[in-house]
């Protein structure tokens, strides 16, 4: 138990520093030597930080939200039919499709950044949120299909057959029976995609070049190395971004273990 406590402290510490620094005034953050706790508390940072920097961080937060929500919704629509059908039915080409899905797990936006850069420039979509929505949806597809496939496959064959005999068509079986039974797996995949999209860095760096269009990950990184970095604002915004992500992850914590086990480890 002591070990557990130490582990927890180690993992929380950086974020504690983040929190404390976000509540410091400008002078405290840059004080030499630094102080652990703020000499004066500045909770109002959380209000001013959105517009205080040269490029408003509010724009970047909105960018992050639009891209993440868009990518998650697109992925949801695309991924569920594919995962459901490959889990339930055998058809020629199924092995090829599953192989493709696994192959794309190996390819990441960072690796393909140069290709993506040129491609979206060719399509006239460079520096657009649409490009990042497509990219995030595509690259998270494999993990999502992987998780959902396992959940769909765990629905007993007879339940699907019973629904078929009761008169449901394929969409009906998916809608009325399967989705209701596997929604934990679906929520897990959705949350995972949302958080991964929000945190994406490399492709966003290369594709989104206008400061107002960049998501938080890129915008924040640009501030580092500047002369008079307003750390308190950067950390404040980070806290605001991190807390919901952590809450979402905590919600799916139980199913993370299940989703990773089902169909992959054995």
């Amino acid at each position, binding site marked *: 138990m002591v*070990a*557990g406590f130490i582990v927890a402290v180690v993992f929380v510490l*950086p974020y504690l520093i983040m929190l404390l620094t976000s509540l410091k005034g400008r002078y405290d953050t840059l004080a030499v030597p630094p102080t652990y706790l703020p000499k004066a508390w500045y909770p109002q940072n959380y209000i001013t930080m959105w517009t205080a920097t040269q490029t408003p961080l509010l724009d970047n937060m909105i960018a992050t939200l639009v891209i993440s929500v868009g990518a998650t919704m697109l992925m949801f629509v695309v*991924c569920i*039919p594919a995962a459901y059908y490959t889990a339930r039915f055998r058809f020629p080409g199924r092995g090829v499709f599953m192989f493709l899905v696994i192959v794309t797990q190996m390819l990441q936006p960072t690796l393909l950044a140069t290709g993506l850069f*040129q491609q979206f420039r060719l399509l006239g979509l460079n520096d657009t949120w649409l490009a990042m929505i497509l*990219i995030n949806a595509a690259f998270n597809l494999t993990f999502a299909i992987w998780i959902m496939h396992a959940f769909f496959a765990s629905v007993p064959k007879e339940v699907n057959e019973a629904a078929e005999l009761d008169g449901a068509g394929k969409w009906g079986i998916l809608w009325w029976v399967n989705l209701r039974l596997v929604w934990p797996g679906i929520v897990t995949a959705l949350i995972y995609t949302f958080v991964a999209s929000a945190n994406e860095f490399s492709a966003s760096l290369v594709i989104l070049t206008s400061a107002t269009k960049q998501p938080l990950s890129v915008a*924040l990184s640009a501030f580092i190395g500047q002369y008079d970095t307003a750390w308190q604002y950067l950390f404040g915004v980070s806290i605001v*971004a991190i807390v919901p992500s952590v809450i979402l992850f905590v919600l799916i914590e139980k199913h993370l273990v299940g989703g990773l086990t089902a169909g992959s480890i054995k």
Partner: protein
Amino acid sequence: MAANRRPWGQFLRAVPWLVPAAILIFGVVLFPAGYLLYNSTRNIGLSGLDVGPAGISNYKALLARPELPSVLLNTFIWVAGVVIVQLLISLWLAQLLNNQFPGRRWVRIAVLIPWAASVVMTTMVFVYGLDPYYGIMNRFLVDVHILSASVGFTQQPVPAFITAIAIGIFISVPFTTYVLLAGLAGVPPEVLEAATVDGAGRARTYFSVIMPCLRGAIVLSTLINVINTFNNLPVLKLITGSLPGYPDDTTTTLMFKILQGEHSIGVASALAAVNFIIVLVVVAIYLVAAKPMRAVES
């Protein structure tokens, strides 16, 4: 139905369900991969305009770069250092979290945080904390007498690289721990009981009974971690990016420097192609050596 039996009919009926995913995969994943391979053999101007074929001149330019050997070495140390150490830590941590103890829930939540948080944001804290002037971590290390004076962690190649590796480990442990926890959940309790009855000590039980069950989890998480670490940009860029030259670069960060700094898209693509091949080779070695595919495809 007759269509039930004919394979062509089966294929056609699968199409509408798979087409959207297939379009996304082909269009946004496979096409850029092919495109970058193509670009690596083209002359591309600074503005991004394709000027003409370049043959292998991009590759030659790449190989002629003096920093290439040290970059390759850095890459190896970076990946091996992060992956191996984080695996060992995760094995220990997963074992710890597999047992009930008061407050376990909170520890598990704490472990989740680096996974949920943006890598950029996590790294930012370290950049701030390790600043030699106002960095709070530096001050702490001095206060507990680990250091005699503040060290400019991000200002010299070796400390920066080590710091980057440490952060890499920090952000990789949560994922691996959870995968291992999933693997541990699959160890049947009867097997552990049988081992106890057979008189196996704790270490013996761990190595002979538990580890083999974890093999799938270890192989899978290591594969993903190798790929993720190899492809990691933010940690290295933020920690070592301010250093002049290329002392701490890996093939990935070098590629970005060539792309964004020098705007040599052709050479960057060539390096990307090399990275691509490295990843394929690593994956191939894994598939041959560890056969995790069998489990995934079933």
